[in-house]
């Protein structure tokens, strides 16, 4: 399947942003899983997870989402019904934005607590959910169901 060369640069930025976002989520999730049981270093790991989501996760998300819109406006959104894979991408990325913001706020609160508790565990589950959702998005973007 071929695409116009003019889309290469926004696609590069879109894919790069998505890859960095997945990396940030993997880093945060790993830290949160290690912090799950509490004990030595759990406060450090919760702080690490919050900062990773805030400083790496949000900018990566913006890079991915803004470039997705750039590609959509130039090549896909010229009228008619969107292919299914585009819809899947939009649903996951837009709900992902909401989830990322909520997770960041909860992670900030969890980082301030002296011990790992329900809040930190909620952040762990939400971060894991985002990661699973983005794997589904990768599948939709590559397999392009309904194309």
């Amino acid at each position, binding site marked *: 399947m071929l695409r116009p060369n003019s889309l290469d640069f926004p696609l*590069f930025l879109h894919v790069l942003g998505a890859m960095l976002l997945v*990396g940030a989520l993997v880093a945060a999730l790993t830290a949160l899983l290690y912090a799950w049981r509490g004990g030595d270093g759990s406060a450090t790991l919760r702080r690490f997870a919050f900062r990773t989501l805030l400083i790496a996760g949000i900018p990566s998300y913006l890079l991915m989402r803004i470039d997705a819109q750039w590609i959509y406006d130039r090549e896909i959104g010229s009228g008619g019904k969107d292919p299914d894979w585009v819809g899947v991408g939009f649903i996951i990325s837009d709900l992902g934005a909401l989830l990322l913001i909520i997770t960041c706020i909860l992670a900030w609160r969890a980082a301030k607590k002296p011990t790992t508790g329900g809040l930190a565990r909620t952040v762990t589950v939400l971060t894991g959910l985002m990661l699973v959702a983005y794997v589904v998005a990768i599948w939709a973007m590559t397999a392009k169901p309904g194309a």
Partner: protein
Amino acid sequence: MSLNDWLLFLHVAAAFAVVAAITVFTILVIVGRRIDRPAEAVAVFRVGDPANILVQAGTVLVLVLGVWLAIRLPEYHPWDGWLIGAYVLWAVAGGAGAAAGKEYMRIQKRAQELVAEGRLEPSPELRAELHAARPLVFHLVTTAAVLGLLVLMIFKPGA
């Protein structure tokens, strides 16, 4: 979904695993430069353990599946110039990545030894290790090679 669709998905997923792992390592390199307490280094560097598995599995899979796709798809050949460039960058990334990993694992082990000895105060030795140029250069070469691979995969020059 055809076999080619599956191969493409798995190839891209493997590439995501590699870049995600490099991102984790980059975060650890940046965070590590602000750490001088052995216990903190031990806690934070554990985050790199799953990324090590991701990068090793992803590096092999991305190459195998990529070559398989190039053989199956009529518009590409495994000997195309942009793919030969990709093989070179893959080898550079693999070599530099392994060297960087060895360096950071040595630092992680030293931090663990300091904790085991009960030396929990800020360590000038650990700080110096985490600020050393050699592991950072290996990591930057790995990152640049992987970025170059991504550029080749998207722009496909000459294809």
